[in-house]
């Protein structure tokens, strides 16, 4: 217990310098993220979502080992994978705040980092991007009565279970339900988050700064436009005698380039023809 308190104090002192001290009601949820790849193989990671009630803000991040949180700049995006031993491995990006999501519920803003050809940009989104439909089905998760909700979000269909007894919030970008999302998964089984613990307490802090640098902030539209430009450019890149252009993914969890994007499809067709 003491360890846990210490760990939160560490996080807080890490995220924000303290000026005038004030008590903030805080909900902290641990989630396990699982990604299943088409090619087979999956990996999981531990994440933590922290909701600061009076500040109307939240922080979502990866935690590999709570003890190492303080020096987590390098580690914060380590991918972890389940015990079964097959030889499927995946690309591990590293860098500052790569998988952090910051939400400001008052300004209805959402900040995260996205990669364009291995270069990271801070992307600013709004919190009204979710078109939830709630369903009359309930189940208990971690002792909370949760209700089902569905939406389509940037290329995938989702099912989420939210607890109205808890404040509004959710893992990664997912949000906008009248309660906390304790479970969410995409219908195609690609991604899921499951809450494994919920903690609540008062912590002393004055304010929470946006951890992202405000230089070079792109809006979602600017980001997907840039992503497409670079994806098309990379198809012409031939750094060695035998190389034949690089095809970039059309997106990750979210779709950046829709299947019916004419510019991109033409460029792809052209590359395959060469």
């Amino acid at each position, binding site marked *: 217990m003491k360890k*846990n308190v210490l760990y939160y104090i560490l996080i807080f002192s890490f995220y924000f310098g303290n000026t005038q001290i004030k008590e903030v*009601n805080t*909900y902290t949820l641990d989630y*396990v993220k699982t990604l299943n790849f088409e*090619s087979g193989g999956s990996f999981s990671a*531990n994440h933590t979502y922290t909701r600061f*009630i009076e500040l*109307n803000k939240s922080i979502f991040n990866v935690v590999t080992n709570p003890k190492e949180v303080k020096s987590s700049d*390098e*580690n914060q995006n380590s991918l*972890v*994978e*389940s*015990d079964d*031993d097959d*030889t*499927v*491995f*995946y*690309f*591990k*990006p*590293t*860098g500052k705040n790569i998988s952090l999501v910051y939400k400001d519920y*008052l300004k209805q803003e959402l900040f995260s980092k996205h990669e*364009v*050809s*291995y*270069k*990271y940009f801070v992307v600013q989104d709004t919190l009204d991007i979710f078109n939830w439909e709630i369903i009359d089905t*309930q189940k208990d998760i*971690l*002792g909370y009565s949760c*209700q089902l909700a569905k939406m389509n979000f940037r290329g995938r269909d989702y099912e989420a279970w939210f607890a*109205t007894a808890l*404040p*509004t919030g959710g893992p990664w970008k997912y949000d906008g339900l*009248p309660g906390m999302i304790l479970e969410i998964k995409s219908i195609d089984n690609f991604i899921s988050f*499951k809450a*494994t*613990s*919920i*903690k*609540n307490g008062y912590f002393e802090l004055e304010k929470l700064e946006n951890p992202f640098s405000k230089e070079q902030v792109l809006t979602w539209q600017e980001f997907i436009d840039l992503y497409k430009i*670079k994806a098309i*450019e*990379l198809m*012409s*890149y*031939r*750094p*060695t*005698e*035998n*190389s034949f252009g*690089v*095809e970039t993914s059309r997106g990750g969890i979210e779709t950046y380039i829709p299947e019916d994007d004419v510019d991109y499809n033409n460029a792809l067709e052209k590359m*395959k*023809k*060469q």
Partner: protein
Amino acid sequence: MALTQSLKFITLFSFFVLNFSLGFSQTVQGTVLDSKGKPLNAKILFIASNQNDIVSEYCLALNGKFFYNLKKNYTNGLILRVTATGYSDFETIITSTNKEETLVYNITLINEKIELLDEVIVKSKTKPFLIKKDTTVFRVDTYKDGTERKVEDLLKNIPGIEVNETTGAIKYRGKLIETVTLEGDNLFEYNYTIGTKNINIDLVDEIEAIENYSKNKLLKGIENSDKVALNLKLKKNITDLTGSMDLGLGDKPDAKDTPINTSVNLLAINSSLKSFAIGSYNTIGNNLSPFNYYGNEVSIEQIREDNLYAQRVIPELSLPRVTNNNLSNINHQFFGNFNGIFDLNKKLKARVNLFYVNDRINSNQFSQSAIEIVDERFTIFDAAIFTKSPIQYRGDLELKLNSSKSSLLEYNISFRDEIIKTDRTISSNQANNFSSFLDSENVFVNQNLEFTKRISPEKALQFNLNYVTNDLGQNFNIEPSIFNNPEFDEDVQNTDTKKHNLSFKTLLLGKHKNSNYSLIFGGTHNTENFSSALLSQNNFQTVTNGSNLNNLEYTFNEIFTQGSYTWRLGKFIISPEYIFRILNQSLQLLQDNTSLKSSDFIFEPSLRIIYKIDQSSDINFTSRIYQGTNSIQNFYTNGILLDNRTLRNNIPDLKLNKSQNYSLTYQKNDLFNQLELSLGTNYVKQRGAFFTNTEIDELSTTITDFFLPERNENLNFFFDASKLLPWIDTTIKVSSNYSIANFQNILNNSELRNNKSNFFINSIFFKTAFNSPINFQNKTTHSYQENRSENLFTNQSIENEFKLVFKPKKELVVSFNYNYIVPNLDAYSNNFSFLESTITYKPKDKNWQMSINGVNLLNEKVFEQINTTDNSTNIQRVDLLNRYILLNFNYSF
């Protein structure tokens, strides 16, 4: 309690009925404030009265305001619940929702000192996780351009991957790949080129590049591995037996023989077996085997096993590589191979690799050296017709016993028997024409036993025992006798080496937070018996020629300990390493009853620092100090005849070569700006080495190697940059490499001479990605070499490679390659042009394809290479495969 609760729940609200209508659905709007009038963010829940606590609709109040149109009509009434964390709930009943009026609620929530949740309410079980290594996955279809047939062809297309044209060795981002696995199984070991050169790309779904790869699963995450492995993932529908057949037959318009290129391969996969087999025969210079008998490039296996091999004293024939079609390799190669992994039971796996190679390489070589020593000038030449016939039989067996979840026992044995017969007819500037025959037989047996135990998630222990025996005999006959003795018909040079090498190692590997460490203790016992005799003989008698008999025994015993640590400190990775060795060497020259002994205590430290500047670039510094021993090559005292003019011997010495090696490199791989940049420098200083004392005249060469505590130096700079110019859809790449070497030698009784050699090579390359059926690429390479001693020897050469690909439709690909080479810019008229063309037709959704290949269409008969040394300019000329046309048919099943 109930009273205080209800008191707490006193809420103020007002309720207005407005007179205007908002259409069909009920509109609800209002404000949510706290008791001080501060606007709140709150959840507005609508719960149908007959549905216990199930939210039917909701909206969120932002900054104190909400506005919502109900989607449904609630005839039984509706509960409106407003909640905000830290405030008491507000609840009211909306009796009917089909009103035309907007319902307006101005709500004040009372601040509530809520009870905190228990610190941990519920904690569900989470599985333990392992951190996985870095991997990049390449989807095969993405990198296909339609001309690829084998895995290797596709690998060449993937950015960051380079394939060595001669050895087939693969590099990923500059790192040599040691392992290529098939569905995660290491079927080919170091001879993975069998797989990459022979497996059809159509069977492969994905290729994964796995960084920080550990061969031994038990060492995963503990071992500080900077190795890269590739994993071939097969298409999902591939089970049981698949295979392909290639049939290539053609015509040489200017010669009688028929070019043939044919192969069959089979891939069988089921739950207990994974196997791949090949049978191939060709006469067009192809080498599908992992063994190289025409050139002198070494394979990954040879690099790994180098100190286990007995040294070949008499050199074998080697040829320069000419164009990608390897035109100098006039071969008749049969290669048969089987690789299989069998699951014998749940814990025991066996891997079997069987090889058979049989080749006949014909060559016609002319070599000429223009020698200048101070004021003396002369030219020597040899014209030789060769036939080199290598045969190799080889079998490898590996048994893997997973005795428990945390322990692994492995046993490996490799048996190799190689016979190389080389016939030579030589005409030269010497008095006679010679005919010679070299017969080499090499029997190599390597056994390895390894036990790995994972003691804890952070530690592993490993024991390794290795035993090698190697018998290498060479028999060289030359007639007439080169010693110009009319009494004898021929000279015979025999050599025989027997090597035994026994070594053991105990390793402790571990990790601690962000660091890895390893501690090794081990020892080696190595003995080599070497004997040789140079004889002259006729039908009646055999006599030893002078005192050219060698009989020596060399032993090498060492005990060592080695430790390394790798720290990851923010952007730095720092790895210091040390080796302490106690080394005893003894050399007994039995023929003259003398012996040498030495005993050394050696400390060899090294340091590696990597600084990761950002996601795409890093700086890498390494420094290493090491001390090397010498080999049999430098221990025999009496002359050994190497060819028709060279006799070589040594003044043996057991002293060590002390080397220092420093390198500094910068690398950037920025896909966002489509820029790749690498530059760096490398410096090697060696103190103490064998230097050559050469006596050379028109007729013969005598080399004596002797040890001196003098130094040799080597300095190298390189620069590579590639960038896409998007406005012309073209990638440009420039490369430069400059190296300087300082070394010493003695020539024809001179003093110790200081020599300096410079080598400078520059190239510029471009490749287009036009939106048209036609695309180009071109590479121009200029090289300059200079050797400076008393005299100056220089040579400049230029090579241009142009490729055009025409793809009128998906099924049809036409390509042209044109190479233009000027071996010596001062003799510009002496140049070579090679044209090759391929037309491939691959019908859609069929399991066959056809191609026509025209090679060496301009019919160059010979190729010439020029290089310089500190005393000569050398020309080497080789015969080439005549122009040919080959019709290929491929069928997959």
